[in-house]
């Protein structure tokens, strides 16, 4: 369970990339767009999970870092003519740096106060995007021009699809490594009990600050990915609605596991598309469904689909063990009975 991820775990990532290359030619633009969107959400949700599911810090600022990623990648690309391969990592680092800075005061706050303070921060970030006309063009938003990566032009969803898949594969691989590190264990330790973690020699504040930073970097990367298949961004992307969307993905999928995050991002990310495709567009019902899903999920599957599946599997396994034990005991008894009878 420690050390490097196994080949068996890394293989699906390779399959993801190869599959994307193959499907790029086969799927219609619309499906490619949805695919890109879902892959972006996976990155975003995993980043949020690092904070909420792994280290137990209930912070709401995630969407602000996502916004920083989008705006910074775009502005670095258009104003400073930086190529995407430089602009995106710089933007992600910038998001990380902001995360690092707000982590210092934020980690002093407990529980609900942390949630409120970071929520307020996210709202402030949206306000800045809306009013800082000279940089963000305010409420009008920014055009995102097509970019190119090492000579490969990324101008539409089809072009972007394999690129997004590669970035997602890299992010997943990094997360697998992270999951097996001592740092991940420290994160779970502070989630479960800060007293125990601290008494065991874990620098709780440092772990929290690093989790904030890492989480913000993930969100920044997701922001960079956004610019690959969208041609426009405005401050609405930083709104509460996006935050609730990502949170719903996390809760429905199951926090604390990569598989849960992927599941949640896909299930919830696809919902608006399904609603839109309904005979009479039901898009207006979107909020209602998100609300209903959130409430039902937290009531009946507090650990999401993935957690529920795990529990079901454990129960099944347990029952099977019991049956086996019972069966072997029966045979023993029967054997004993037969020897007694024969004697």
């Amino acid at each position, binding site marked *: 369970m*420690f*050390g*490097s991820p196994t080949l068996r775990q890394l293989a699906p990532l390779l399959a993801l990339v190869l599959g994307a290359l193959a499907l790029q030619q086969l799927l219609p633009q619309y499906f490619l767009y949805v695919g890109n969107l879902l892959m972006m959400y996976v990155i975003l949700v995993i980043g949020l999970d690092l904070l909420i599911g792994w280290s137990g810090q209930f912070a709401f600022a995630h969407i602000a870092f996502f916004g920083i990623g989008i705006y910074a990648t775009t502005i670095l690309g258009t104003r400073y003519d930086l190529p995407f391969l430089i602009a995106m990592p710089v933007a992600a680092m910038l998001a990380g740096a902001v995360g690092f800075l707000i982590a210092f005061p934020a980690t002093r706050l407990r529980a609900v106060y942390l949630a409120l303070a970071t929520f307020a921060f996210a709202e402030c970030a949206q306000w800045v995007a809306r009013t800082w006309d000279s940089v963000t063009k305010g409420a009008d938003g920014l055009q995102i021009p097509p970019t190119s990566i090492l000579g490969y032009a990324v101008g539409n969803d089809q072009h972007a699809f394999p690129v997004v898949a590669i970035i997602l594969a890299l992010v997943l691989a990094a997360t697998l*490594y*992270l999951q*097996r*590190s*001592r*740092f991940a*264990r*420290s994160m*779970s*330790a502070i989630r*479960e*009990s800060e*007293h*125990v*973690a*601290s*008494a*065991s*020699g*874990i*620098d*709780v504040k440092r772990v929290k600050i690093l989790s904030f930073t890492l989480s913000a970097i993930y969100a920044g990367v997701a922001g960079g990915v956004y610019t690959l298949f969208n041609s426009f961004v405005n401050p609405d992307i930083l709104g509460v609605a996006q935050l609730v969307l990502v949170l719903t993905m996390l809760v429905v999928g199951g926090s604390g596991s990569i598989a849960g995050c992927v599941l949640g991002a896909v299930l919830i990310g696809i919902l608006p598309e399904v609603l839109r495709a309904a005979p009479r567009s039901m898009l207006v019902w979107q909020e209602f469904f998100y609300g209903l899903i959130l409430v039902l999920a937290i009531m009946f599957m507090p650990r999401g689909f993935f957690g529920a599946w795990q529990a079901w599997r454990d129960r099944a396994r347990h029952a099977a063990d019991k049956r086996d034990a019972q069966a072997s005991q029966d045979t023993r008894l029967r054997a004993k009975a037969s020897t007694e009878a024969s004697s």
Partner: protein
Amino acid sequence: MSALLSIDGITVRFGGLVAVDNFSMDVEEGRIHALIGPNGAGKSTVFNCISRFTTPAAGDVRFAGESLLADPQYAIAKRGVARTFQNIELLQRLTVLENVLVGMSSRVPGYFPLLPGARRRRIEREAVDAADEVLALTGLTGYRDTLAGDLDFGHQKLLDVARALSAKPRLLLLDEPAAGLRNREIAQVDKLLGELTARGMTIVLVEHVMQLVMSVAQKITVLSFGRKIAEGAPAEVRANPEVIEAYLGKRAHA
């Protein structure tokens, strides 16, 4: 022989209440030193001062000759002081093994997964081996992969001790390890403490279960209302009229 831990005139106040009043105590290396007293006497507060969960308003706490009071909380483990908690604190949703591995955080290198694979695997393997040793010592081997939250009360208490032990501390602070345990389990703790001292570990024990204290402690300090009222070998302390009074009240003594 000089003391491994020496507490020198500490005073702790919560608001207007003096929880610990000018308290001193020396713990010699390789001994089990019990700290007893009625509820609310300030025993846990003394523990919290040593492990830096509380800062005394006055006085000093020295470990191996150096003051602990300048250290942040998490650095105490690295110095070689580990503690357990009175109201079991465990990492509920981690396995028994993982709990013990977390307990080693102060002495296992490698924070980020940036080391080359082979070296990282070796470090992890050694850590797991050491953890298994601690589990064997505390009799928890059979529960290695159980979630800590699923253990019964007695095993949770043991796991708390195991987690502290895994740091290989020079000084172990045990806060009521036997509280709420059945007799058979208390005997198990008794045996474990004996083995630990045989290995040269120094232990400060806060405990209400007198049968355990009298059996394992070489020295006992009695605390009442934040002040030290008696100190000495178990037999002396047991005979001390002031101690009997503190525990049973004036009339019983008279």
